[in-house]
């Protein structure tokens, strides 16, 4: 069964919101933390509500609204979101005040907005959408789980269209903590040369990308979502190769039939070895683009990759600003996204032209 990506909405560290032209210019970020380029939210959210909302809620709601507007869908049949970290800002506010004020005189707002279903619930509330509403919070599988749920809803006939999104934010607190785990580069770095340095660590990213997935085609669809799979903690590279090979054979294709591979290389010399090895084996000679120099590393970054792939398929070619390796065909009709998060969560997403 073919599923169609009818519309997208994306707030990211690049100028992606409002479809200004696919990566017409690439935003450079210095340092190991990428910030989203945020729009003026007033066009999408009531001013009074904007003041109450944390950044991730605003980003999520606006990306969702843009996606629905583009799709021409007022109320989707279902809303499924994926977020690993949830609403970190509000969680941090409530937690800090609770500790500092020794559990006394606390206000409820930050707590109310701290739950992982806040964004999905806010979207439902704004749209008066009584339909299916689910939230996946599983680290590097959060978006993939949400996407699988959406795909199943369409296949089951439970929904004709599903709004599905992946979103995560970085906060000062989360960045301070994650930095102590040694996740990020310590030397000066620009996202533009992220992959040129053979050092440890990556750069922190964030974003909110939504998709309107439908079971029936229209004239304006971006792409067809063919298949998705995930695998958890492969024991070694051979097992990773087996998973990839069986995914491709399950779709009755061989690697030479993939027009473009989008990988999750993040600049960490250890984690990137996986991609380099696969390019010697299952991905040999497949033209490749790496997306994390654009959006940074975060657990739901594959939502950014799906946005990128959808837009490349729609235009048929790579934007000139985007570096690639290998020989890209004149018209790009089939893209495979392969990402791994900390070599624990691996995912494959296959999309094609309509």
């Amino acid at each position, binding site marked *: 069964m073919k599923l169609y990506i009818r519309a997208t909405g994306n707030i990211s560290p690049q100028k992606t919101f409002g479809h200004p032209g696919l990566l017409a210019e690439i935003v450079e970020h210095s340092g190991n933390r990428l910030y989203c380029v945020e729009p003026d939210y007033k066009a999408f959210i009531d001013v009074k509500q904007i003041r109450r909302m944390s950044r991730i809620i605003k980003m999520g709601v606006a990306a969702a609204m843009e996606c629905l507007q583009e799709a021409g869908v007022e109320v989707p049949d279902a809303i499924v979101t994926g977020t690993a970290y949830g609403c970190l800002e509000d969680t941090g506010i409530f937690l800090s005040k609770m500790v500092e004020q020794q*559990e006394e005189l606390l206000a409820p707002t930050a707590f109310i907005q701290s739950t*992982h279903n806040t964004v999905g619930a806010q979207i439902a509330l704004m749209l008066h959408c009584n339909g299916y509403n689910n939230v996946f919070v599983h680290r590097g599988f959060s978006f993939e789980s949400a996407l699988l749920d959406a795909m199943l809803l369409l296949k089951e006939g439970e929904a004709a269209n599903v709004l599905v999104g992946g979103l995560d934010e970085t906060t000062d607190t989360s960045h301070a903590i994650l930095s102590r785990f040694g996740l990020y580069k310590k030397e000066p770095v620009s996202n533009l040369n992220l992959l040129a340095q053979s050092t440890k660590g990556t750069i922190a990213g964030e974003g909110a990308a939504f998709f309107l997935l439908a079971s029936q085609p229209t004239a304006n669809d971006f792409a067809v979502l063919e298949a998705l799979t995930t695998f958890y903690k492969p024991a070694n590279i051979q097992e990773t190769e087996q998973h990839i090979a069986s995914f491709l054979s399950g779709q009755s294709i061989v690697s030479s039939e993939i027009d473009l591979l989008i990988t999750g290389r993040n600049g960490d010399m250890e984690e990137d070895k996986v991609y380099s090895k696969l390019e010697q084996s299952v991905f040999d000679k497949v033209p490749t683009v790496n997306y994390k120099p654009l959006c940074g590393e975060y657990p739901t970054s594959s939502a950014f990759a799906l946005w990128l792939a959808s837009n490349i398929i729609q235009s048929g070619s790579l934007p000139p600003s985007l570096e690639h390796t290998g020989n890209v065909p004149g018209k790009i009709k089939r893209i495979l996204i392969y990402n791994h998060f900390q070599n624990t969560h691996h995912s494959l997403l296959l999309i094609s032209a309509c």
Partner: protein
Amino acid sequence: MNAPVFIAGMGAISAIGNNLSECLNALENQQAGMGEMAYLHSVHSKTLPVAEVKLSNDALSEQLGLSKIISRTAMLSMVAAKEALENAAIAALSNFRTGFISANTVGGMDRTEQFFNAFLPDHKKGKLRDVVHHECGYISELAADYLGIRDYVTTISTACSSSANSVFYGARLIRNNILDVVVAGGTDALTKFTLNGFNTLMILDQDPCKPFDENRKGLNLGEGAGYVVMVSEKVAAVLKKAPFCKLSGYCNANDAYHQTASSPDGTGSYLAMKGALDRAGLLPEAIDYINLHGTGTQNNDIAEGTAIKRLFGPVYPKMSSTKSFTGHTLGASGGLEAVFSVLALRENIIYPNLRLQTPMKELPFVPETLLLKDVSVKNVLSNSFGFGGNCSSLIFSKI
């Protein structure tokens, strides 16, 4: 898509028992689990009763054979999920595609709170081992790794309906032939974060809660974990014992009314219950027992009651809120109450709704106040409604 999904195993830990049989025994003997805090350290320890699991972190760690103490949320999950798998006793589990679908609301927050004490004044301080498992998904992975489940692992967090949704999603993965066996449910340990959060909303009762009572004053927070093992028809055929029942109905709907409050007419609750009945192909009169969401807050009980009145009136099934025993275990409640629902089917019993003295004026029905034994229980509806308007209902049916 409509292949049956069987319940082949279950496991539970809560304030009323450290395993299935202890929980059942407490339910039959009307022994509630609320009391003064013994393990959670809070300034509210004298004023707010909670329903704690009666095991320290040391005891849980030792029981599990772990070399160190990890988040209580993960340890509770491991205890109940392990019991569920053992209870299912599936021979050669490794021959089947097995998934672990868990749920929780605040991940490893119990440890993050400790980390923040040192971290807040100085960002270089605080032990990283206290915050490493903060994410909800990490809690599930600790349990999945402990159980040796690797084919599919994910986590759902939709506030109080989280683990009803994990059961629901797990069943669909079986029906879509993605998995053969799914361990699904949820876990949550008591944390200061949630206790204070609910306290700011002024919906915590300072006495043991009274769900569906006219004079109810709020909920008590609890902790625990509950999991069911669901299997496909193919797996059920090779089990040594017959499955307990099947999951016949499920539905997820959103109230779309308010971030924390339910709509007065319980739109989301109504849609979830109605959808689950439709899915199961059952009429309302086929339901023998409703395990109510029944938190004991003013808002939930009237919204849920109004939705039940609209859907079931004028003839009502037996019903009760087991939160009057376990407190509200948040992300664990859907899983825990799924287990209690299956136990009600297996034992042909209906649990009492404790401390219900004055029935709600607005409602034409009264939940059961005494244990009913030797009743015919063929279909049980379990409700889980939550913040963000996330409402889910499950129906378990005898085979």
